[in-house]
């Protein structure tokens, strides 16, 4: 076995009298990828800085660290100097003849038109390209060890997974060591050979990995309680030169049926329209056209009193649980307010009981009612949001990325709560998520959305075994920690390409794809896909 490139023995990071990381031991060998995961605030960034010997002011690192001669650290949210072109910044690091090496490094990170982009300033580059350029700058120096702190953490899952895959491929090819730090949700463990977990200041092996969750069982397929048909949502953007209104269509022709006690998962990344569908169902945003029928009554045409009455049946969970709570009102008051608004006929004592019951069912102590949202952890806030939703004993929960801000433990707890509710009370769920693994696990039926349109739909097991759309296959690969086969960044919703919105990233794209958006075609009963070349793929997707 080759000697380690970097070795830390008893690395301890302190801030004044506080110990942030205690006696961390780790090493990285040539062509090895190590992931260090942990919750937010665990000290991952400081651990990397300690390993690099670049402690910020006010912090100190003890212990022994054997470093290589060439080591590069890419801090979290690293950015480029705003007033200098990319070429100037590469030249600063690599010397006057940097251009060819800069182009090679940028192309390695799949930056298209790399030579041309070198003459641009950072603000002229999209976020994804800027992140790639930062990493390329680090790669171009030829480090023996690269330490990357949450690289691409703010990017879409497929873009981030590809970026991490490219970094790992570089490390293995160049014989360099690569340490990726980040939360579990940042996907750093995906391309890693080894994973360590930092929690409460101690670095150690991660908890035993649970069995990969199996896809939700095929639904019973009873009569639908919720029926969404040809839903369109559009927002006015301004005036055309002729005086008409310009519209931004964010949801186009989405439809599904949800039987009682089952789950429909709306799976897609930023700009896919999943949240808009969820909110349009609840009439939190206006739909342009279509039909959303709850037990046969069209919610989109209900008058305000009837809609108010129907809200008892349909409740919502929001992506950022703390922001979904008014910071100025205590938890108990907010739950009581919801109870009073939804069930005005009940007296105060009954409403108080209802609130206490909802808190208990969400797994929260009664004392939480006295707390203000600022004092809640994201996990507690998510449970408070769940408790508020449970106050009127709803029959439908519309969950808009309910686990997006949660750590793995809180995420697991919330999902278990939702599944328990479904089993015990037959609650139906609409789950909008960018997390493919969650969609397979919870959704009886999964709709994959891209640029506001459904590009593939089937039951979860079918999609997992036989996804036909390249976008679905990329999402599956990302969920499983593999490198997806989609290049580049998603296009802006304001400037979608003609034809298929995926064609600029798609490995299968041909001229036809630019002409017309493919319609949904039936692969088999219950499985539809919108791709001109869906029949070219085989079963058992491998992400390539």
């Amino acid at each position: 076995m080759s000697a380690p490139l970097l070795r830390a023995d008893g690395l301890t990071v302190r801030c004044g009298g506080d110990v942030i990381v205690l006696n961390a031991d780790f090493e990285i060998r040539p062509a090895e990828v190590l992931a260090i995961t942990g919750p937010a605030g665990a000290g991952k960034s400081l651990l990397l800085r300690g390993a690099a010997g670049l402690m910020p002011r006010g912090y100190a690192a003890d212990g022994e660290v054997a470093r290589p001669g060439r080591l590069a650290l890419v801090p979290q949210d690293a950015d480029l100097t705003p007033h200098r072109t990319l070429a100037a910044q590469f030249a600063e690091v690599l010397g006057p003849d940097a251009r060819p090496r800069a182009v090679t490094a940028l192309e390695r990170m799949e930056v298209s038109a790399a030579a041309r982009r070198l003459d641009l300033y950072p603000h002229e580059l999209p976020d994804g390209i800027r992140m790639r350029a930062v990493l390329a700058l680090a790669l171009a120096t030829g480090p023996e060890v690269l330490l990357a702190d949450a690289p691409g953490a703010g990017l879409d899952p497929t873009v981030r997974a590809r970026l991490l895959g490219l970094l790992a491929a570089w490390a293995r090819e160049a014989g360099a060591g690569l340490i990726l730090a980040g939360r579990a949700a940042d996907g750093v463990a995906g391309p890693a050979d080894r994973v360590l977990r930092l929690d409460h200041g101690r670095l150690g092996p991660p908890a035993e990995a649970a069995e990969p969750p199996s896809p939700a069982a095929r639904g019973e397929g009873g009569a639908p309680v919720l029926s969404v048909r040809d839903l369109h949502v559009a927002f006015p953007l301004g005036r055309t030169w002729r005086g008409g209104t310009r519209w931004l269509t964010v949801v186009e022709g989405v439809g599904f049926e949800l039987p009682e006690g089952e789950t429909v998962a709306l799976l897609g990344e930023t700009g896919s329209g999943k949240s808009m569908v969820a909110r349009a169902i609840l009439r939190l945003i206006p739909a342009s056209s279509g039909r959303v029928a709850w037990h046969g009554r069209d919610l989109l045409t209900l008058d305000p009193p009837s809609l108010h009455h129907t809200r008892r049946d349909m409740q919502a969970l929001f992506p950022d649980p703390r922001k979904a709570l008014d910071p100025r009102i205590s938890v108990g008051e907010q739950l009581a307010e919801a109870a009073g608004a939804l069930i005005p006929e009940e007296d105060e004592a009954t409403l108080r009981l209802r609130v206490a019951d909802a808190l208990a069912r969400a797994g929260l102590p009664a004392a939480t009612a006295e707390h203000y949202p600022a004092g809640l952890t994201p996990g507690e806030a998510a449970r408070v949001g769940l408790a508020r939703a449970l106050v009127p004993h709803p029959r439908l929960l519309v969950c808009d990325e309910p686990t997006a801000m949660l750590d793995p433990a809180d995420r697991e707890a919330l999902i278990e709560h939702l599944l328990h509710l479904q089993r015990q009370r037959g609650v139906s769920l609409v789950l909008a998520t960018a997390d493919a693994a969650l969609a397979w696990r919870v959704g009886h039926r999964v709709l994959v959305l891209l640029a506001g349109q459904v590009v593939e739909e089937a039951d979860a097991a079918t999609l997992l075994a036989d996804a036909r759309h390249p976008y679905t296959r990329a999402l599956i690969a990302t969920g499983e920690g593999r490198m997806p086969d989609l290049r580049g960044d998603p296009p802006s919703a304001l400037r979608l390409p003609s034809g298929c919105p995926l064609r600029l990233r798609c490995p299968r794209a041909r001229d036809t794809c630019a002409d017309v958006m493919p319609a949904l075609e039936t692969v088999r009963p219950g499985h539809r896909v919108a791709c001109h070349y869906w029949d070219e793929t085989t079963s058992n997707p491998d992400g390539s």
Partner: protein
Amino acid sequence: MQTHFDTATDSPWRIARRRFAAHRPATHGLALLMVVVVGDILAPQLEELFTDGPVTQALRAGHATLAFAAVAALAGALTGTLWGVLAAGLGRQVGRALARAAGWLAALPLALLPLVVAGLAGRAPLLFDMAVTASVVPGVAVAVHAIARDAARHEFQAAAEAAGLSRRAILWRHTVPGALGPLLAALWPALPRAMAVESMASLLGLGSSQTWGALIGTAGSGFTLLPAAVLLAATLAALHAVGAGLADAFAGDRP
């Protein structure tokens, strides 16, 4: 200074109060303001004790200065608030035009407005008062527009709507109370601004002859100038310090 509060159980208003109390310049500024106001109230009694001199004149002038600044700032704040709320609440084109106009005007050196008005219309007290008031309006409108626009975008409003609250209930229970703290912090600077504009104009011989600015303008020597100048500078510094304390108290997601 360490601020002691419990974010879990302390009410946001209590936290804001403690944050303000922990802002040392703000508390010192508030104490100084209280001294100035008390001095202003006691000015008649002091005149009986001391001979009429620069100090008693300055204390007497404090009454007119503070009253004028308070009235001008209040009128300016109300007008600016109305402007900002309309800019945020009216339809796309009208709202945008109002917001743009406020932005343009706020970028102008409006402290010179009373001088321009006096130059054009002569010494007309009503016009002078209106010019001082108008000098604070665009700045207030810009700040209120930003607050009003943000106040309508909180996720907890969508959550409250999903939880069955009517639009009216959301407005009065969530939106308006949430905006009060930032609004107070945004409106406060209108007070020192109105005072500074009035004092500058009065120093040049415009406006009232009974304010600190006028006393400074007509003072013959350093000694006669000093009490009014010190009081004006100290009051302006105190007002700005209190404004900084309010901004600190209401900063962040919660007041």
